[in-house]
């Protein structure tokens, strides 16, 4: 405790140090006065007595300092002094300071933002108990409903039950529906329906994960033990917050979806967003209700409705190898029993062969199931590299600026050392100055990181598809970026300091700002500039490549006419229509007819898919075609005017007519050119027959027409994927989400007229989205656009930083050589000659940077090949363009100091020292 009271006394002294200093002085003065008095009394003269008294007292200044240092705060006062001095030094060269601060802030801010996003999507573990023990069957890449025999990734509910019961390696296992159900429902007694995302899960879902309810309870096995009679729901924290306003009484609330009323039994904890990254459900409902939740997937008891992901928690002590062996054993047994119940493939015995070959891998689920991770991991990785490069450039810039500044201060430091300043004291001061700069920049970076992060998220996920990923800043990452940049600042603040204090003083003093060639003395600074130029080139070429990719994609021939088309989305399942509802064809026919009759409508048609919504694929069986190739065909169900709406040309045959709408007989289909070419290579495809799936359906459809090829899901899909066939809308009863309209005139008027017409037919049919086809195309490029935007931003930032670096270095070098230049000019050198002299140095640096940058770029370009469209990473246009831009900008940055040098007045320059 002694030290504590002592510390207290020290603190008091620090607080009152001004007063204490005065008191000490008074005390000492009294002492000297008294001594003088005493000496006078002994007979000395006043002056003599005063001198004697002072001699006996000793050096008052030193004694005062020693007394004060007893308080133990000298270091602090020194630090404060240094900081003030450092701040003043920073303000003396505001340009350099601003650049260094900006480099630091952007370096730290942008890096943290990007890393946080990457962390959220790729690296973070699920917030559940011991996520490392969770494994999922298969790779969870596909989603949907399948009836393929013995799939290793999607499972039917009864199969899940059997696997859960028979395996010996999972302490608990669960399954979730591989898709979310986007539905419209009513909360409590509200009359307005609202969109909600439902995830169907087994009763064991939360228990397997080890997630407990924040409020109420989670599901138990009992909520899932019989089909259709467990209308309960667990809601997410964010939904509870948004839609229920954190109502503590949430458990007494209900949600009505379609005709079923669900009671809310629990609220999930805040950090739990589900098991799929970027797909945060609002509501979890037991799988037993799958028939009741639109769009009524059902299949609860169906062995061939494979739609679930199964995952489990390994029992303690069980290895992944043991688990894989056991699960595969169980899998084989189950499907061997199911073999007779599955539809057979094209050839007898196919299923048995499939089962023999099939293997179920176990995939770690610690980080959740992620589509966006797969989709954007390449982009994110490249962004990470880009930002790391920018961080490097920023660091190089800081290093360069500090180097230049402290080299300029060599003489000042030498003078101070000559006056007796200790080397450590000077080092400490330079360190403090670097720290002040680093901390200020770091603080700006930390402050800007959240904004950059939000900006980034908005850029990455544009359009209506807001991906709910949690990108709260990761403190560790922030500290990392902060640490990296700040230590750069410190390191490069210190290196010259150490060098400077090791000087032979006389040399430095004599040297002054004289004629020594500054260039020869800063190889480090030059190396930094060269590497900056090289890195900038890499980034610039990258952004040029991504920009060209976007342009290529936007100009690619989509096969349809994108202008003057409006797309309306409706949600029939939420409006109470059942999957086979007889009212559906009536609704479709009526909407099509009445909208077609509106003024300004050129054509209007339903379709099950329009561009960029995914696809429904399947194989077809064509007589005389090698069906083992099993080419996926994209199926689309369309109204007769669909081709007119989309502007897809009919190449051969005829379009749909009333004769195709009858329920009886062979149905007519229209195929794409690509499909005609691949599947009916010989002769005209018109009149030929084929069927879905296996041989027994071979005569089902007859080709009546051939249309031009179109892009179906994305603009960068290759021509081989354009195998598409179109089925007539009538007379089938199925949900159709898309209503497409080609119009002339004002789209806003048309849009509201069409919506009015639809609601006049069914007031309850939700129109979930209206957009133009052109918007849809642009949206589909958002990923590429973000890459291009971010890369351009960082590329230009890099060039900017490099130019600043070159400008700073050259200004500094020219400044050092003022004297020499003055001499040259006094001896008759022309300004143009001086300019050339300086520019030659810059040229060498830039050329060296580019010479290094080009091979690096070409090598690095391989990494981005998969993200480019119709473009090689060695695209000469991008390479040349980027090089030219970089060259121009850096030369301009160098020209300013060169120009200044050529304007030096010889007399001024010579007097300068």
């Amino acid at each position, binding site marked *: 405790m002694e030290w504590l009271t002592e510390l207290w006394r020290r603190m008091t*002294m620090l607080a009152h140090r001004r007063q204490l200093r005065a*008191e000490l002085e008074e005390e000492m003065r009294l002492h000297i006065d008294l001594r003088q008095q005493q000496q006078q009394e002994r007979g000395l003269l006043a002056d003599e007595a005063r001198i004697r008294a002072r001699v*006996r*007292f000793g050096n008052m200044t030193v004694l005062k300092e020693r007394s004060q240092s007893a308080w133990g705060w000298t270091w602090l006062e020194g630090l404060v002094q240094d900081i003030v001095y450092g701040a003043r030094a920073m303000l003396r060269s505001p340009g350099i300071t601003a650049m260094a601060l900006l480099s630091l802030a952007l370096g730290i801010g942008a890096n943290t933002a990007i890393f946080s996003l990457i962390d959220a999507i790729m690296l973070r573990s699920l917030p559940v108990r011991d996520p490392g023990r969770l494994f999922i069957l298969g790779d969870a890449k596909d989603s949907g409903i399948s009836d393929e025999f013995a799939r290793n990734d999607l499972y039917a509910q009864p199969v899940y039950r059997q696997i859960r019961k028979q395996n010996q390696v999972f302490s608990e296992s669960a399954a979730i529906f591989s898709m979310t159900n986007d539905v419209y429902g009513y909360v409590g007694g509200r009359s307005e329906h609202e969109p909600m995302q439902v995830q169907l899960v087994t009763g064991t879902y939360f228990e397997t994960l080890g997630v407990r309810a924040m409020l109420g309870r989670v599901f138990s096995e009992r909520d899932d033990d019989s089909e259709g009679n467990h209308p309960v729901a667990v809601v997410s924290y964010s939904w509870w917050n948004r839609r229920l306003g954190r109502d503590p009484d949430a458990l007494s609330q209900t949600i009505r979806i379609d005709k079923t009323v669900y009671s809310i039994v629990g609220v999930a904890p805040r950090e739990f967003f589900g098991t799929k990254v970027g797909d945060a459900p609002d509501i979890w409902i037991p799988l037993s209700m799958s028939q009741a939740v639109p769009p009524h997937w059902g299949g609860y008891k169906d062995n061939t409705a494979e739609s679930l992901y199964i995952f489990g928690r390994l029992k303690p002590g069980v290895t992944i190898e043991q688990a894989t062996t056991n699960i595969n054993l169980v899998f084989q047994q189950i499907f061997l029993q199911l073999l007779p119940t599955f539809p057979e493939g094209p050839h007898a015995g196919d299923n048995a062969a499939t089962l023999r070959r099939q293997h179920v891998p176990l995939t770690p689920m610690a980080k959740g199931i992620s589509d966006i991770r797969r989709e954007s991991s390449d982009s994110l990785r490249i962004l990470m590299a880009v930002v790391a490069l920018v961080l490097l450039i920023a660091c190089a810039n800081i290093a360069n600026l500090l180097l230049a500044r402290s080299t300029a201060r060599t003489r000042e430091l030498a003078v101070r050392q000559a006056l007796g300043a200790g080397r450590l004291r000077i080092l400490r001061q330079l360190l403090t100055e670097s720290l002040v700069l680093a901390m200020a920049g770091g603080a700006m970076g930390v402050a800007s990181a959240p904004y950059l992060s939000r900006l980034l998220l908005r850029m990455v996920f544009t359009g209506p598809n807001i991906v709910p990923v949690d990108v709260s800043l990761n403190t560790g990452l922030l500290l990392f970026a902060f640490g990296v940049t700040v230590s750069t600042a410190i390191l490069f603040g210190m290196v010259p300091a150490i060098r400077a204090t090791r000087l032979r003083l006389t040399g430095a003093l004599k040297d002054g700002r004289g004629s020594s060639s500054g260039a020869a003395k800063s190889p480090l600074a030059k190396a930094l500039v060269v590497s900056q130029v090289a890195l900038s080139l890499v980034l610039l070429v990258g952004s040029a490549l991504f920009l060209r990719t976007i342009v290529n994609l936007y100009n690619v021939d989509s096969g349809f006419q994108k202008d003057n088309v409006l797309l309306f989305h409706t949600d029939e399942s939420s409006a109470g229509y059942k999957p086979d509802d007889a009212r559906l064809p009536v609704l479709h026919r009526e909407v099509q007819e009445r909208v077609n009759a509106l003024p300004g409508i050129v054509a209007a048609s339903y379709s099950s898919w329009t561009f960029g919504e995914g696809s429904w694929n399947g194989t077809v069986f064509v007589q005389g075609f090698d069906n083992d190739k099993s080419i996926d065909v994209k199926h689309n169900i369309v109204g007769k005017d669909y081709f007119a709406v989309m502007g897809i040309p009919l190449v051969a045959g005829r379009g749909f007519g009333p004769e195709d709408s009858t329920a009886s007989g062979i149905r007519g289909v229209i195929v794409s050119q690509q499909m005609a070419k691949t599947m009916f290579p010989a002769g005209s495809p018109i009149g030929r027959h084929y069927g879905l799936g296996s041989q027994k359906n071979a005569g089902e459809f007859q080709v009546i027409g051939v249309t031009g090829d179109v892009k179906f899901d994305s603009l960068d899909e290759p021509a081989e994927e354009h195998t598409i066939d179109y089925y007539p809308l009538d007379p089938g009863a199925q949900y159709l989400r898309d209503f497409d309209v080609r119009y002339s005139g004002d789209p806003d008027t048309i849009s509201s007229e069409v919506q009015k017409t639809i609601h006049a037919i069914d007031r309850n049919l939700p129109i979930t989205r209206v957009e133009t086809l052109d918007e849809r195309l642009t949206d589909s490029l958002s990923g590429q656009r973000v890459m291009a935007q971010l890369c351009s931003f960082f590329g230009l930032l890099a060039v900017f930083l490099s130019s600043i670096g070159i400008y700073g270095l050259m200004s500094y070098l020219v400044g050092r050589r003022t004297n020499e230049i003055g001499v040259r000019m006094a001896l008759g050198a022309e300004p143009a000659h001086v300019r050339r002299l300086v520019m030659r140095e810059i040229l060498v640096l830039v050329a060296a940077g580019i010479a290094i940058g080009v091979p690096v770029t070409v090598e690095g370009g391989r990494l981005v090949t998969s993200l480019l469209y119709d473009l090689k990473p060695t695209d000469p246009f991008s390479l040349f363009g980027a090089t030219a831009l970089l060259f121009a900008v850096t030369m301009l940055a160098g020209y300013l100091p060169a120009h200044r040098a050529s304007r030096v007045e010889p007399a001024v320059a010579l007097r300068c020292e």
Partner: protein
Amino acid sequence: MNRDEIPPGTLYLLILKTLARFGELHGYEIAESIQQASDDVLQVEEGSLYPALQRMLIKGWVTAEWGVTAGNRRARYYQLTASGRKQLERELSDFERVMGAIARVIQTA
């Protein structure tokens, strides 16, 4: 006027002892007392009392209070604390041990 520097490390001891003897003293009085008590043999560089006193204040061995001198001037008077007294005992016994040891060395020589 041949005066000896005080042996290093004993300044605290001298100040503590002086204060123990006279109670309240200001800086000048302490210097004078030490000098007189040693019959003018021990010569303190008078100013160095003050850093020592500051350190002792921090250690809590002495407290200080402002008072008025006989000549009617403001002066800071120092006084021993309890822990100062303990410190004096410690320093005294240390000193005696060292002196004894030195004495024994000299006697055997």
